């Protein structure tokens, strides 16, 4: 199981980094989503991998799994989900306003959006 989780995190991070380095917003957004999945699984695994163990104190339990990373992951999921939504909206807005879908700033338009000169 350790190998499976480790390679899953590795693959997702690899694909995520590749996509984040692309020039257009859509792959970048996908890459950020993949990176956040990788991080969530990674955080989860940092509490050590345990199968079928209790997270909360119980008289019959034989061992425990760490509940704290699960709480951390929940927070991280909420934040990364919200941020993905924000970046999608902002990327769409940027595309609609400038007719360009790349993440670089470019040199064509004057800064500040001055219309004349």
């Amino acid at each position: 199981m350790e190998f499976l989780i480790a390679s899953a995190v590795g693959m997702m991070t690899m694909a995520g980094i590749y996509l984040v380095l692309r020039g257009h917003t859509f792959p970048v957004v996908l890459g950020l989503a993949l990176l956040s999945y990788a991080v969530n699984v990674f955080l989860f695994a940092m509490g050590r991998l345990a199968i079928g163990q209790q997270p909360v104190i119980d008289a019959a339990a034989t061992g425990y799994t760490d509940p704290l990373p699960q709480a951390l992951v929940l927070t991280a999921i909420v934040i990364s989900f919200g941020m993905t939504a924000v970046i999608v909206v902002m990327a769409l807005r940027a595309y609609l306003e400038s007719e360009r879908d790349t993440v670089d700033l470019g040199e064509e338009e004057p800064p500040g959006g001055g219309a004349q000169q």
Partner: protein
Amino acid sequence: MNHWLILPILLPALVAPLIALAVRHDIVLARTFSLLSAGLLLVLGLILFAMAAQGEILTYALGNWAAPFGIVLVLDRLSALMLVLTAGLGCVVLLYAISGWDQRGAHFHSLFQFQLMGLNGAFLTGDLFNLFVFFEVLLIASYGLMVHGGGAMRVRAGVQYVVVNLVGSTLFLIAVGLLYGVTGTLNMADLAQRVPDVPAGDRALLEVGALLLLLVFGIKAALVPVQFWLPGTYAHAPAPIAALFAIMTKVGAYSIIRVYTLVFGPGESAAASTFAGPWLLPAALVTLLVGMLGVLGARALGQMVSFAVIGSMGTLLAAVALFTPEAMAAALYYLVHSTLAAGALFLIVDLLSERRPGYGDTLTVAPRFAQGGLIAGAFFAGAIAMAGMPPLSGFIGKLLILDAVREAPWASTIWILILGTSLLGIIGFARGGSTLFWKSASVPGNFQAGQAAAGLPFVAVGLLLAGLVLATVFAGPLTGFLDQAATQLFEPARYIEAVLRRETGGD
């Protein structure tokens, strides 16, 4: 338990939704609430400052959960200083914004309050994951503020800013996960106790975590090689927001100071002190050089000030990187100074570009504009402060830093770079100022006076410049306090004791 500590977070957290939900259609009420809240935050900051100045480290356990298990807020001299600085800058920026900027888009005031909440939380928290959460709070608010008012270029710069910071957040989470996996705690005081006892086999993981954290804080602090996002963001952000962002880079510097003096501090274990220093100092020096070369090469005034901010972060972090109490005190003085100077300059850039329709803040010769003399004077004062010339506080800050690094191994390099880049800064600002104000004075014609309001914006700029003058005049008492703050930072045992004593009960 000291209940005052939660108020700087609670107050904006309550006012922001109130503005967003109840008074969003009434700009006058929104402004009133926003200003009241910022003013109260300043008063709160000063009260907390007076408390912290006594020297005791105050803690507040959220939900009364004992320290390593629950989240704690901690107030020491450095946190109190940052709270006052945030609230002060927030008040001034708000004064500037209510003369028009806040109506160019929706929800300015509630986002502004959320931003203040995130900043205050980041300065107060004593828990690493909670620091991440407050980073997110302040970043999410800043995404909204960054694109306030819209415009194609601004939104595009905003997308870039969000992408960089999302990658930063991802790295932050990986670092937090590594540190938790190795030590089993995220409370900073508890971490500080456990880091020296990490078994040798896990040492490499710990170091990776520590350096990843440095990279994350470096992104916030615009440290080379991750400084590239700053000029695009600051130059395209609405001017009052760019002025508020002057404190955002300081959040990165604050986090570096806090984490690398406390958790990975140069404390008992000699190996731990090598975490940040060897990386931070060269990076900071290159940052300084890159920033000031950028000032020389900038084609617009906003860009120039952005690069000056990068340069000032380099100066600040070079002093921090030595991790000695004297250099830290000098760095903190420079931190106060550069926040005020950058805030003032960004506001001046906006005053200028509002009055030159069609030209904006580009370094081109244009006809005369209204209140040109006043703006030129303000720019002159701000540029003197930023470049570090006497008589303003930039000079004292650089002098303190130069004096503090005399014993350091890299002293001659630091001296050469700080003095050399000061010259670059002076040349850059002189070139900008003479193009914009002197050469333009000889061009025939006038811009229409326009509808740009004359009152409050100038009061705001004046207040920031007055802050610089105050920091110069009262440099003695201020450095006295900062010496104490730096000494406190290098006594992590007292911080740990203050946080963890709650284990054995409390009030």
